[in-house]
């Protein structure tokens, strides 16, 4: 209530001031007037001022009215506020009460938590104290126990006691000893006694362990091995144990070497002697790791396996070196690779001589890949996740620098040289032994060559080395292009022997004493090689997609490497495609063009300027198109079964193109009347229908031009052209249309000239 009154008051005050302001201004205006000697003659300026004042007054009045009009509204508001006011007081007192309650609760809570904190400190002290007491008691216990159990030879118990002692906080223990004034002597005594016992136990365990190793008593070895970590001798234990395991592996590998050296050359494993030896070695090591890994993890904790593996790897290096250098020597790898590299290798006839050796090399490398994979898996399983990258990097470092790794890389290199040689020689041989089996569209080389290439790549893929597979794929591209495509290209370049001799051919034939059967052979060879190109392209595509799925790629980089190399196979496809195009061109040039020309030329002898009578006899006999179709059918059926579908379709397409252009050529030399045009269109339709029926693809497009020529010549009147000109997608230029129309003897030349197209 009060506040609203104050506001009201302020408001009215302001009004008053405003009014005073105005009046004072008016006063000052008047006072200035007084100075003027002629009061009545107000100057222009004064009048202006006056009107301004009046305007201001009006404005103020308006404002005043506006403000006063709000008075009622404000009053209702004030009334509303007055009603609510008593409630506010209640709320205020409630809030005050609440505040008191809360502050009381908070002090209470603070007090409580303070006490709890104190309690907690007390409790921890108590437990610490308890711990110390326990330690002290245990110390005593350990001290007594150690001696008795050591005396009785119960080393497990003794070690457990020492372990308990070592687990105590040594500093704290000494402090405790100081704190316990009256008994400090006995505590210190116990400590020193235990220290001594620890050292003594270490010595005993070490010697016992060594004895056990010397006696090959694996149970005792394991027994003492388990005790080392209890004495804090983790590294020592692992080291000793590794030595023991290395010894075992060594003995075993020596045994294997000995049996191997006694294996006779006729033994059925003789060919894979060295890969067998490596397999034994890797298996021995893997088994050793596999069986002892739980022991190490249980008693030594995770992350200790790497040390063991590294020690074993050293032995693996030594043993594998022995095997591999023996292999290198006895298989004559050095000589073989260098003679192949220098190109002086004398093949003993059969490239298959390499098969066994290649198989052995690939197996050896594949075992090595598996072994590495095993090591990586074991080590990563043994390590906590956050430490894995560093531990695995340490393993990789070890592997990278190890002798085995380097030797295996050399082995792979030798393998690749031999594999390349094998592939090249085998493919050459397959091409040299190329035969055409009856009933087959292509020749034997295509299956043989791809069999060899696939075999080589599969074998390379078995090595487990992506670089190896990629290299063999690259080499395969080279061999396919250089050997096979070159051979096919050479055959196709010679052209298709038709057997329809021209003079020059006949002449050369007499000289070369070619028998007709030779021509037949050359024909089928040409066709087979043409088909080879199409089938070869298909095979390459299948090979590439098959390999993309088949070859295992452990990493994304490996995958993209593989794909990069596989894309190289597309260049083989391109080379095949080029040979195929060449072959088709040659075939068409030999078998289609020269034969088609005389058949179509016979059209020239048949007048197409026909009377009704001539037309009906022409219709009945179909002198031209019937024999043409029969002739073309001769060609088509000649190749239908012998060519692969793609080649056959290409050939028919070529045939259609040739028919189209040659027909046009002869038509342009003739003249036609209406009936002649009608006959022509029927002939063209028959021809198109026939060609279209020869393959599954549509050939109509190829003959579109000829069809349009026939349509033009079959028009009843010349002005029909304006009707059909807009309806078709014309293959003929306007000039050509006019030229065709001029062939109609009954169309006036001037009208043709006048046509606007």
């Amino acid at each position: 209530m009060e506040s609203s009154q104050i506001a009201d008051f302020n408001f009215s005050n302001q009004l008053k001031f405003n009014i005073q302001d105005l009046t004072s201004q008016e006063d000052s205006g008047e006072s200035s007037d007084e100075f003027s000697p002629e009061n009545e003659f107000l100057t222009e300026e004064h009048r202006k001022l006056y009107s301004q004042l009046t305007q201001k007054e009006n404005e103020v009045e308006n404002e005043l009215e506006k403000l006063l009009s709000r008075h009622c509204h404000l009053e209702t508001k004030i009334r509303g506020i007055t009603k609510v006011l008593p409630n506010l007081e209640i709320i205020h007192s409630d809030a005050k009460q609440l505040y008191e309650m809360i502050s009381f609760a908070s002090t209470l809570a603070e007090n409580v938590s303070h006490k709890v904190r104190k309690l907690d400190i007390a409790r921890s002290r108590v437990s610490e104290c308890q711990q110390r007491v326990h330690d002290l008691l245990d110390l005593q216990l350990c001290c007594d126990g150690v001696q008795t159990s050591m005396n009785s030879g119960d080393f497990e118990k003794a070690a457990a006691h020492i372990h308990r002692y070592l687990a105590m906080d040594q500093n704290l223990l000494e402090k405790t000893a100081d704190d316990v004034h009256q008994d400090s002597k006995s505590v210190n005594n116990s400590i020193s006694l235990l220290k001594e016992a620890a050292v003594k136990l270490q010595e005993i365990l070490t010697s016992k362990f060594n004895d056990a190793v010397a006696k090959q008593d694996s149970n005792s070895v394991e027994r003492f091995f388990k005790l080392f970590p209890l004495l804090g001798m983790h590294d020592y234990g692992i080291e000793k144990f590794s030595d023991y395991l290395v010894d075992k592996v060594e003995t075993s590998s020596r045994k294997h070497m000995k049996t191997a050296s006694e294996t006779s050359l006729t033994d059925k494993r003789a060919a894979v002697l060295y890969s067998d030896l490596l397999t034994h070695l890797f298996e021995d090591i893997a088994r050793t790791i596999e069986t002892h890994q739980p022991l190490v993890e249980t008693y030594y904790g995770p992350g200790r396996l790497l040390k063991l593996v590294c020690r074993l790897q050293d032995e693996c290096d030594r043993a594998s070196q022995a095997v591999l250098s023996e292999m290198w020597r006895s298989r004559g790898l050095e000589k073989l690779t260098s003679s192949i590299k220098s190109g002086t290798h004398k093949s003993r006839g059969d490239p298959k001589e390499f098969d066994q050796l290649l198989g052995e090399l690939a197996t050896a490398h594949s075992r090595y890949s598996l072994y590495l994979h095993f090591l990586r898996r074991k080590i990563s399983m043994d390590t906590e996740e956050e430490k894995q990258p560093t531990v695995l990097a340490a393993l990789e470092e070890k592997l990278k620098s190890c002798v085995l790794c380097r030797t295996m890389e050399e082995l792979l290199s030798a393998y690749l040289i031999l594999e390349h040689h094998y592939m090249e020689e085998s493919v050459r041989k397959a091409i040299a032994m190329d035969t055409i089996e009856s009933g087959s569209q292509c020749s034997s080389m295509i299956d043989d060559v791809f069999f060899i290439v696939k075999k080589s790549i599969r074998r390379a893929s078995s090595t487990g080395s992506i670089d190896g597979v990629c290299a063999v794929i690259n080499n395969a591209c080279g061999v396919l292009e250089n050997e096979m495509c070159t051979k096919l290209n050479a055959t196709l370049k010679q052209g298709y022997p038709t057997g329809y001799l021209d003079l020059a051919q006949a002449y050369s034939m007499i000289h070369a004493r070619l028998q007709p059967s030779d021509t037949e052979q050359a024909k089928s060879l040409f066709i087979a090689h043409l088909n080879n190109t199409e089938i070869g392209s298909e095979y390459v595509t299948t090979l590439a997609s098959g390999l993309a799925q088949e070859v295992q790629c452990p990493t994304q980089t490996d995958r993209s490497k593989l794909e990069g190399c596989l894309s190289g196979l597309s260049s083989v496809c391109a080379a095949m495609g080029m040979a195929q195009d060449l072959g088709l061109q040659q075939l068409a040039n030999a078998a289609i063009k020269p034969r088609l020309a005389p058949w179509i030329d016979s059209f020239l002898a048949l007048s197409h300027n026909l009377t009704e009578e001539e037309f009906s006899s022409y219709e009945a006999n179909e002198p031209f198109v019937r024999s043409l179709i029969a002739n073309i059918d001769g060609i088509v059926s000649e190749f239908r079964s012998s060519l692969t579908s793609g080649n056959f379709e290409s050939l028919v397409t070529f045939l259609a193109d040739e028919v189209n252009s040659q027909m046009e050529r002869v038509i342009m030399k003739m003249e036609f009347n209406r009936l002649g045009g009608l006959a022509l269109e029927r002939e063209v339709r028959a021809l198109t229908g026939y060609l279209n029926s020869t393959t599954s693809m549509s050939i109509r497009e190829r003959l579109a031009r000829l069809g349009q020529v026939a349509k033009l010549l079959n028009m009843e009147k010349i002005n029909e052209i304006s009707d059909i000109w807009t309806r078709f997608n014309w293959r003929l230029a306007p000039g050509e249309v006019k030229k065709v129309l001029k062939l109609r003897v009954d169309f006036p030349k001037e009208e043709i000239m006048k046509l606007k197209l």
Partner: protein
Amino acid sequence: MEDYKFLFKVVLVGNAGVGKTCLVRRFTQGLFPPGQGATIGVDFMIKTVEIENEKVKLQIWDTAGQERFRSITHSYYRSAHALILVYDISCQPTFDCLPDWLKEIEEYASSKVLRVLVGNKIDRDDREIPTHVGEDFAQRHNMYYLETSAKESDNVENLFVKIATELMEQAKSKELPRYDEINSQNINRRTTSIDVTCCGN
């Protein structure tokens, strides 16, 4: 389908430790990894560069310099469009080996392959082979010549861009023996599953 008009294979060769991997890393990832270990077999990287508003994809094969990987690296020569032969300007033996490398290139690579001689590590103070010696050698053997520093990123981008430009011009004038536009159209026509070597033509 990826958006590029040309694809070229670039193969780096040269003695071990001359900085082939560093050159590739610098170009493809902008990194200079110190203490780079020896490459095992071959490494494979891809980078697309834009030249005259055309996207050119470079397939870069970084080969191991060590002798025992030779039979792997040889297999990459044949299909290469460009060969970068690298030596270390602060190490005479790497320069002395160049004739041997050229012999290999003659034997295994296509005769039309683009050959570039690169003297790397020009950031080093202990230069042993003066620029003009390298230049002379390159000129005598009909090669392009460039000096680079993978460490300081000197001339590295330039090297690859130059190669891409040159190969693109060759491809446009249809001089490339393989993978050029005509052939790849053939590939597109004949096969469906084999990775196309270039597209958009």
